């Protein structure tokens, strides 16, 4: 059973930490957005999109969770028979997306909060603000990529 427990822990960390990153990031961006809207409600739509940008990490975490579940299901063994080694490997494979999701989510949120200030002064440059935010997201993508690659390499025999 320990093997399966480790698998569950891995999936939980992937979705949980990455989701936490998104929550922190969208939270910070949302505070800035509220400040701008208090002076100029017309900018609401653009600011909403800026606030949503750090939400990607949570989605990546969830995708990683699905992939973990899918991989384990693909082995075709009952939950009790999952060896501890495989469980540990899954746990390790979940770490890239979990850690990068958490940290990049928070920092992307800070960049998006600054983008809200940008939009307050120059609403037509919202695109540039978005691009700055997305650069931070690259590392979450790399984290997801790492998780996906590692998951592919894990099999029961190892």
């Amino acid at each position, binding site marked *: 059973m320990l093997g399966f427990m480790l698998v569950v822990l891995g999936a939980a960390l992937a979705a949980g930490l990455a989701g936490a990153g998104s929550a922190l990031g969208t939270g910070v961006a949302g505070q800035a957005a509220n400040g701008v809207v208090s002076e100029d409600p017309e900018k609401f739509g653009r600011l909403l999109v800026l606030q949503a*940008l750090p939400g990607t990490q949570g989605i990546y975490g*969830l995708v990683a969770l699905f992939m973990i579940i*899918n991989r384990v299901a693909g082995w075709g063994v009952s939950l009790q028979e999952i060896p501890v080694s495989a469980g540990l490997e899954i746990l390790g494979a979940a770490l890239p997306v979990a850690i990068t999701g958490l940290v990049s989510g928070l920092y992307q949120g800070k960049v998006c909060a600054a983008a809200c200030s940008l939009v307050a002064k120059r609403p*037509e440059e919202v*695109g540039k603000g978005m691009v700055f935010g997305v650069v931070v*997201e690259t590392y979450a993508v790399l984290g997801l990529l790492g998780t996906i690659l590692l998951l592919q390499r894990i099999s029961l025999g190892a």
Partner: protein
Amino acid sequence: MLKVHLLGHDSVRDEVKRFLRGLGAVEVTDVALERSESLFDEESVREYEYRREQVESCLDFLEPYAEKRSFLEKAGVGPIVTTSDALEELDRSGFAQGIWKSCSGLEKRMREARDGYARSRELVHMLAPWAPIGVPFGSLSTNRFVVRFWTIPEREAPGTLEAIEEAMPCTEAVICAEERGWAFAAVIVAKEETEMLEERLKAAGGVEHSFGDLSGTPSEIIESELASHRSFEEIIKAAEGEAKELARERDKLLVLLDHYTERVGLGSIEKHFHRTESTFVVEGWLRAAGRRAFERGIRDRFEDIELYFRPPEEGEEPPIDLVNRPLVNPCEFVTTLYGRPVYRETDPTPLLAPFFILFFALCLTDAGYGLALSAVSAIILIRFKPSGGTAKLMRLLFIGGIATAAVGIVTGGVFGIETSQFPQAVRSLILINPLEEPMKMLNIAFLLGLSHMLFGMGIRMASNFRAGLVADALFGDLLWILFLVVLAPLGFSAILGGYVPDHLFFWSKRASVLLAALIFLTGGRGEKGIAKRFFKGLIGFYDVVGYFGDVLSYARLLALGLATSAIALAVNGIAAMVKGLPFYTGYVAAALILVLGHGFNMAVNTLGAFVHSGRLQYLEFFSKFFTGGGREFRPFRNERRHSVVKEIEE
């Protein structure tokens, strides 16, 4: 867009202005020179601005006192109809000034009464603990003694006061009240010993209070203040009643507001005209499609007006007005949220429309929610007849809802009900159930994403070709499109572990090596020197990381769709559990959970679907071909919001 110049004699200036305003098709640009500025009638514009401000402040003040109409009533009422004669009459009679004087007076009365009331209440609150004192404030000192009022921390009070009374026998302290941790003491002390008293009491943490110019005993004062409260309340109520009466004239005020706004608009637009002693020139932007109507309108009404049209020159940035077919039009909401295209760019709206709607549907993925969304937006459109941005948004949601319904049927989601409950006819339509086959759905999402991106690159290629930048189009765009196409199967098998037939894999590998070589060789085009070309060709490959990240971003289509389905299932599950409660409360509770749960799910996921589908357009799609930065076209037009002027036919 065309630039139009209009030259006319001063005598028709006013009529031309009204014609322009009525037509509402020309954005007036500034051609005033210094001389014309001196001819501008600043005074009358200011006068109308002042009157408008008066009306606005009256409306603001009277707003809380106006009759509350229910939301539905407000929606059914149309604009107020008036005539220009009635308007002139209202204006001349000084109606606005009269109401403004009354409102100012009322506001002052109310404010003074409220302030007085507050001060009185505070005084009562402050005096309350001292009520037991039966000596009026005026007679608190004699030749040799004075009364002092101190609050002392409750714990210290008895001890301190006893000590004082022992040490200074002529002193007597009375504790009037003990509240909130303080003892309220009145102390009779000999005049020459007051300093000693102060020292001791301060040392014990006491604070002195003085009631300077009050007269009468505390309880007398309290009684009279309480009596005054009623008169304050009456004053306020009377003023509010008068305000309610005035608020009935709200319609007249709204009509005047429109009237003054129009006058200000008509007046201030002249700031942009070029004027001489006897002529005037107007310059502005006009849509090319509106030229004939404009010319005809001028020729019909005026003789001797000179018109001149020209297309925008190099370096001029005309304002942007978007025009799209009725089905595509609502997606302008998405485009304008980001910005408008520059004059010579393509309008991305028809290009993003199908993708946006499809992605929206995939994120919301529930036929029930889709139909509900369409129904709600249709009701809002028909009943409340919104205008401008809100109308576009409602139409967008309506189309999105229909698309969601279609996608929902195909993925087997209707309010989260288990597919096994459906009749066979509906079940046969289901192509894929995301909950059962998430990885397959994920691959579909990636495929859609890749197509979206390639389409964007294709648009860039097309505009490069059109602009004559053939080398950029071929080597910058076409090569990359092909490269990504052949990389796709490789990535699919190596990274996602998907199945790719051997010969496809083989040829993809070959083709990607060939294309990579070509990209490397042509990447440095335009640079001088082998080293620079080598370097630029090499770092071009860094873009692959960017493209890969972009494709991964589309995974959100799966995640958001699943989230909707999962929450819908959960809501149904909870409702089913609750159904078992006795005496029909179970059914009531279950119904409540279903309505609130699905309602909440629908609202949250509609917002998410909109924002994330939009974000995919802005970041993954626009970045391939669109810069934006265009300015909105704002023609000089009628801006009446509350009223409509009809001329009485004589």
